[in-house]
């Protein structure tokens, strides 16, 4: 379907407007507010899907705020949406919609829910803005909106010390990270007098200052994406936030990962094949750095997850390892840019973004369901719940097998792409990846045992299955996981491959804005 150009700002504007309307609607009725938020986000998701079908068939779409023509001085902000952006937007919309629907029953007993929903909508606007924007400063602004909203949501349960602590840690880390992003943006602006990604990309020289800007951008955004050893805030905040927020945070984290991709592949796309030092070209240089961090992330993530006893912290460490897999695929793809296996690795990394978001999201929802039913988060005190909560158990099994990458679920499809390409870069990478995938299985089997199996504990005798709305959300995500698992080729050809093309073919992104391209 052919969507008009103004759909793009609309996708960001609808949640933003909804955010400011929520407190007003909340005055009328609590139920009405819940319905309102769900409708706003469902509408938004629908728009994203329509936009996706359009962009995947016709190509990049842009929308200009301000000056339409290129006469000096250019005062304008640009939204530029390509297949990669829309890929991330689809993931964010699904997760946020799931979180909001799940919140209906899950957060029912909390007060201050108008603020809660307002913040979720703001966070959504921030995330979608991050992935849609074509302007570096605008990216920083959306990054900050996302951070502030996430921080407030992490610390939503202010009556618990840990939540507040996690919120404080998160805001310190993200404020520092975001300020370094701004510093890098200023460095680029100072040299080229441009803020637009496409314009910058067409003129970038890879000077000394550009190198510094690149390092600042990659490290700051990688920290916000949760790469070891800058991951420590991630288990803290994922673990202490309400479960619904944890899954929104997953997609916020992935939006930062998108930032890394955009910076490396598009902003510096022109400079990637220039020679850096020691006769090594830039893409190999950065690629190996990312691969090294990714391998450390995978190892540290799984080994730390193995000794956790808090359910949500455990999943969070699992998520760190999964982020490592994405960066492994992407880093290998960057290092071997232009080769066939490099392309497979890049596909695997991008495909894994989607799979990880769904798998980890489902596990967080299961953790939320258990917390809802038992008010207990420590795995040491749980047990025997498979008798009382049959459906939740079934969804957990799907999540467990998917996150550990067991066939025939979606995790396997993306991991096999990563294994069977990275080994050509270096065999050790694939070995570590396979091994840690099995460790991840062990980690979640431990959860399976301690939460769901064992004798019927007397204190959990009367535990009931969670309400239907929560089961429905988990069921839908589980169905998507199984579908992607059974038809991975369909998803790869239709969504992942265009996204990877969009990253590698940065000149198309540039030529949409700068006449003539490169």
């Amino acid at each position, binding site marked *: 379907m052919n969507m008009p150009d103004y759909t793009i700002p609309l996708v960001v504007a609808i949640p933003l407007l909804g955010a400011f309307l929520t407190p007003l609607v909340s005055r009328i009725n609590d139920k009405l507010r819940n319905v309102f938020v769900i409708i706003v986000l469902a509408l938004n998701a629908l728009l994203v899907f329509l936009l996706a079908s359009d962009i995947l068939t016709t190509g990049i779409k842009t929308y200009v705020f301000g000056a339409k023509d290129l006469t000096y001085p250019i005062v304008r902000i640009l939204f530029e949406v390509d297949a990669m952006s829309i890929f991330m937007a689809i993931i964010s919309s699904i997760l946020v919609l799931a979180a909001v629907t799940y919140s209906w029953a899950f957060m029912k007993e909390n007060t201050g829910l108008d603020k809660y929903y307002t913040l979720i909508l703001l966070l959504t606007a921030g995330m979608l803005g991050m992935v849609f924007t074509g302007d570096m400063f605008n990216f920083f602004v959306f990054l900050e909106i996302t951070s502030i909203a996430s921080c407030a949501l992490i610390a939503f349960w202010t009556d618990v010390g840990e939540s507040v602590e996690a919120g404080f840690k998160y805001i310190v880390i993200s404020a520092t990270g975001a300020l370094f992003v701004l510093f890098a943006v200023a460095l680029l602006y100072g040299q080229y007098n441009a803020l637009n990604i496409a314009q910058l990309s067409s003129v970038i020289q890879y000077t000394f200052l550009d190198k510094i800007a690149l390092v600042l951008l990659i490290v700051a955004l990688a920290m916000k994406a949760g790469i070891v050893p800058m991951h420590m805030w991630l288990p803290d905040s994922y673990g202490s936030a309400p479960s619904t927020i944890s899954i929104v945070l997953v997609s916020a984290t992935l939006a930062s990962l998108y930032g890394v991709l955009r910076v490396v592949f598009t902003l510096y796309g022109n400079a990637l094949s220039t020679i850096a030092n020691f006769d090594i070209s830039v893409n190999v240089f950065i690629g190996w750095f990312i691969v090294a961090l990714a391998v450390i992330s995978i190892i540290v993530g799984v080994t730390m997850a193995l000794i956790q006893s808090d359910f949500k912290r455990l999943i969070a460490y699992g998520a760190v390892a999964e982020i490592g897999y994405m960066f492994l695929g992407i880093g290998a793809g960057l290092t071997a840019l232009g080769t066939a296996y490099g392309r497979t690795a890049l596909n695997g990394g991008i495909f894994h973004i989607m799979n990880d978001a769904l798998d980890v999201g489902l596990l967080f929802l299961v953790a939320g369901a258990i917390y809802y039913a038992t008010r207990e988060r420590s795995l040491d005190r749980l047990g025997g719940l498979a008798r009382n909560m049959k459906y939740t158990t079934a969804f957990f099994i799907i999540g467990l097998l998917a996150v550990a990458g067991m066939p025939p679920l979606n995790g396997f499809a993306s991991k096999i792409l990563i294994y069977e390409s990275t080994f050509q870069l270096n*065999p050790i990478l694939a070995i570590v990846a396979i091994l840690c995938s099995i460790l991840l299985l062990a980690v979640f089997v431990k959860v399976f045992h301690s939460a769901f199996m064992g004798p019927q504990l007397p204190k959990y005798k009367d535990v009931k299955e969670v309400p239907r709305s929560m089961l429905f959300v988990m069921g839908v995500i589980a169905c998507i996981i199984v579908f992607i698992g059974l038809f991975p080729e369909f998803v790869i050809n239709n969504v992942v491959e265009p996204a990877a093309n969009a990253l590698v073919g940065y000149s198309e992104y540039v030529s949409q804005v700068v006449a003539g391209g490169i």
Partner: protein
Amino acid sequence: MAILETSETVLRIILGTVGVAIFGILFGLLYKGIDRKISAHMQGRIGPPIIQPFRDVKKLFVKENIVPENAIPWIFNLVPLLGLAATISILIYLPIGGLSPIMSWGGDLILILYLLIFPSLALVIGGFSSGSPYAIVGAQREMATMIAYEFPLAIIIISLAWKLTQMGSENVFALSTIVGNPIWNNITGPLGFIGFAILLLILVIVTPAELSKIPFDAPEAETEIAGGLLVEYSGRNLAMFYLTDAVKTVVMASIIVVLFFPYNLSNLPLLGLESGSYLAYAADIIFYLLKVFLVILFSVTLIRVAIARLKIDQIVYTYWIPLTLLSLVGLIFIMWDGFIMNVLGLA
């Protein structure tokens, strides 16, 4: 036309699965009987008759199938089935004798590596779900063993694939490629030979752990935790696990044969067999069964009789430190094989 082809493929899968299921179960039990007989002779006993495993299964089928009160019935009953089904599904990807695999383009070595996890996972989850402390201790030991031996196993598979990539092959993880290019033919120098020999040795040591046989049988350990993860299983559920073990033995031995000894008798000009004739197929299958038998003899029977059980932390240590280092040495040898030869100007 497409529908016809699709339905033909589906029929092929269905019939093939039935075929390999029967093959796997029959020969698995047979090899189990032979294994018991030989180990009895080595210990100076007479031992049971070779068809004893068949009788065991038959007996288990008429025994009561008890579900203990601490167990979770649906998981407890489901996992033995899934474990056996997954083990049988591995066989459709493996070449048997001179026949090519039933589904040669449906899956590769990485898939087999993952499918091999399923039976162990079934044991682990079955053990956990039975709710007995003995079973739980056994299950966690099985899980630790699994992680432990997966490290050297991954190194072996990746090294083989890497070597084949260097030789310029495509689809290096596909079993048809591996069978088509036997690794011993790809060696450029002695270093490579040593490397592959080390990997073969490691794979032989990994096998008993994969099959939870002595000395890596800490998960079952009859003498200390009373059968471990199987302690609560009885009747037909136990029979399922018994069959899984039997089929898995054939699978593991077949994998070693495929990776390291994929040669066939029918190609020997000495025998003068027409390729494609029934005689050639028969010769290949008999030769294949013989190879599987030899592998089982070395990696299961001999090791089992000769060595005592290790503690669980010793198992993890053995696999992660000495064996992993050794297999990494093998990998490095293979990686340097051609390189060193070039440097020395020998190639």
